[in-house]
């Protein structure tokens, strides 16, 4: 679809015969109106660029004192002792990545499953309801997920964790991932809550992509005697792989930036460990938990954490958007 051409009616093309004809429309109020309206709309659009630039500039400026004190050790060491002016955020970066990774491992199969359910498997009456449930899931505020995770999920799921931990203790690889003394507030609980929050995002985008698979592709697979799963496996998934990848990365960006729910359930213990049932800490959670009683350099370091988080999420989002934009062009055939 193309926008309407800018037809300029204020001038008539010069002709050879006779004096120049008067313009079809005279300038006056209407013409200025167009100029002004276009200008205002353009300004509104430019606000987006302005705000993004201002975010990068102002937070980096506030964080600079801490960056100067810590240098590269800000992201390479895990000594975070504000009293001694030591700001090594590696454990928080690790916690953010690990909890997001757990969320990804749980949410991706489920989200793609629901997207396929809503497009391929569900009875027609149910398909609209699936979308509706996803909307509800997306609408629940993150602090409510955090409240539920803290008061209901964390205490009740600890025995389950401990059972898994006891079963895997001593087994070489599994033991170092699941073993040990399990905690209700942990990387895993944060990952589960994040997975619940990520699912509607990944599902709705994947569903849209899957819906663009041409009917002829499906019919062709069925025509060759494929079962429904073989049709999905060889017609639907290859076609939508790019879009699903993009949506998963968007979900990842969302999970990395999620603050309140993680702050409530991750356990606020800075450590780098392979054990997913141990408590940990994440960048956004640290900012929330320490900002209130921080002195000026400590505050600056916390804003520095925000800058690192901003850069990480921007990178993930830009990558996701480039995947999706490329895909848009392909499906539009341009």
């Amino acid at each position, binding site marked *: 679809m193309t926008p309407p051409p800018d037809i300029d009616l204020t001038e008539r093309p010069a002709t050879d015969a006779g004096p120049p004809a008067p313009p079809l429309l005279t300038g006056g109020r209407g013409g200025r109106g167009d100029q002004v309206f276009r200008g205002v709309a353009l300004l509104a659009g430019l606000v987006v660029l302005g705000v993004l630039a201002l975010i990068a500039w102002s937070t980096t400026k506030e964080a600079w004192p801490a960056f100067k004190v810590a240098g590269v050790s800000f992201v390479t060491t895990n000594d975070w002792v504000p009293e001694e002016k030591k700001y090594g955020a590696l454990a928080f970066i690790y916690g953010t990545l690990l909890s997001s990774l757990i969320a990804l491992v749980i949410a991706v199969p*489920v989200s793609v499953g629901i997207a396929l359910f809503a497009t391929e498997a569900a009875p027609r009456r149910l398909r609209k309801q699936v979308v509706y449930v996803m909307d509800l899931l997306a609408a629940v505020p993150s602090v409510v997920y955090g409240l539920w995770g803290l008061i209901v999920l964390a205490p009740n799921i600890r025995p389950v964790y401990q059972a898994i931990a006891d079963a895997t203790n001593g087994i070489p690889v599994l033991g170092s991932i699941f073993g040990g003394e399990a905690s209700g507030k942990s990387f895993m609980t944060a990952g589960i809550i994040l997975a619940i929050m990520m699912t509607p995002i990944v599902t709705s985008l994947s569903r849209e992509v899957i*819906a663009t698979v041409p009917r002829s592709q499906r019919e062709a697979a069925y025509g060759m005697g494929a079962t429904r799963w073989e049709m999905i496996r060889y017609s639907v998934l290859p076609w939508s792989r790019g879009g699903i990848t993009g949506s998963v990365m968007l979900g990842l960006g969302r999970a990395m930036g999620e603050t309140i729910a993680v702050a409530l359930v991750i356990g606020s213990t800075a450590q780098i460990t392979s054990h997913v049932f141990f408590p940990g800490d994440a960048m956004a959670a640290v900012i929330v938990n320490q900002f209130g009683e921080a002195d000026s350099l400590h505050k600056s370091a916390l804003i520095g954490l925000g800058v690192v988080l901003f850069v990480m999420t921007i990178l993930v989002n830009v990558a996701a958007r480039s995947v999706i934009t490329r895909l848009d062009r392909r499906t539009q055939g341009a």
Partner: protein
Amino acid sequence: MSDSATTRDTEATRLLLEVTVSRSRRVRDRLATWWMYGSFVVVVIPLGFILFYVVQKGLPELLTRGWFTQDIPAVSRKPGGGMAPAIVGTLVITLGASLMAVPLGILGAIYLHEYGGGGRLSRLIRFMADVMTGVPSIVMGLFIFTVFTLRFGLMGFGGALALACLMLPIVIRSTEEMLRLVPDELRQGSYALGNRKWRTIVTVVLPAALGGIVSGVMLAVARAAGETAPLLFTIGAARKINPSLFDGPNTALSMQIFSNAQTPYAAAQARAWGAALTLVGLVFLLTVVARIVSARFSLKHA
């Protein structure tokens, strides 16, 4: 999208497959079906759990006298008091954010679709708006803290600014999608009647897309109303109703949930559940009204 004819054909095909397809292929097909149904069930269960707990634990609070009218008690471990300041705070802060983000967002979308088209600048703005939707809400809070709160102090307006930053890209992108659905014939008809471009946009294009725009805006408002992180460093704390955005610190439902959830006291936790039910009710109301508006006024695809 497949229609009912395909579904019926699929069923016929499946019956045929039952007798002609080898056992292992049938088993794999079955497993895949279980996976798809199972995924949906797996998500419905926690959602059901969460809503059940929010209603079960929150409802008694809402039914106490003064929940909607009284101030927040100074000592959070004692029962009693209400949530009125947080309800008022959430409403005025979200309203303030909407007043800033909605007009800007709609104008920006008009530029992107009606003026910019596929040009380089509009592609850049569109891309950056997409990127901006991914900026974590805590970063928006820190941003407003550095540019506003450090200079002017804690007040509702700071929170409104941070929420407006979150809403802006959502409003831009959803409005642009709606403008895209307005058929070009409408615009050409308006030009043919001698209307200028700006009049065409204001009197023809916007009214045609209004249902979709309103519904997108309401979803953005619902998202903003539930946010906590942007408010933490910008609005401070308050226990009395403060209807002003500019006069002193304020509070919000999400902030009350966050602070009360972290205390070990039963009365405070009950207050958190009550605030959660109030907030979820508000957000679902906005979401449902948005769905109804978009269903009632949706443009048929041209």
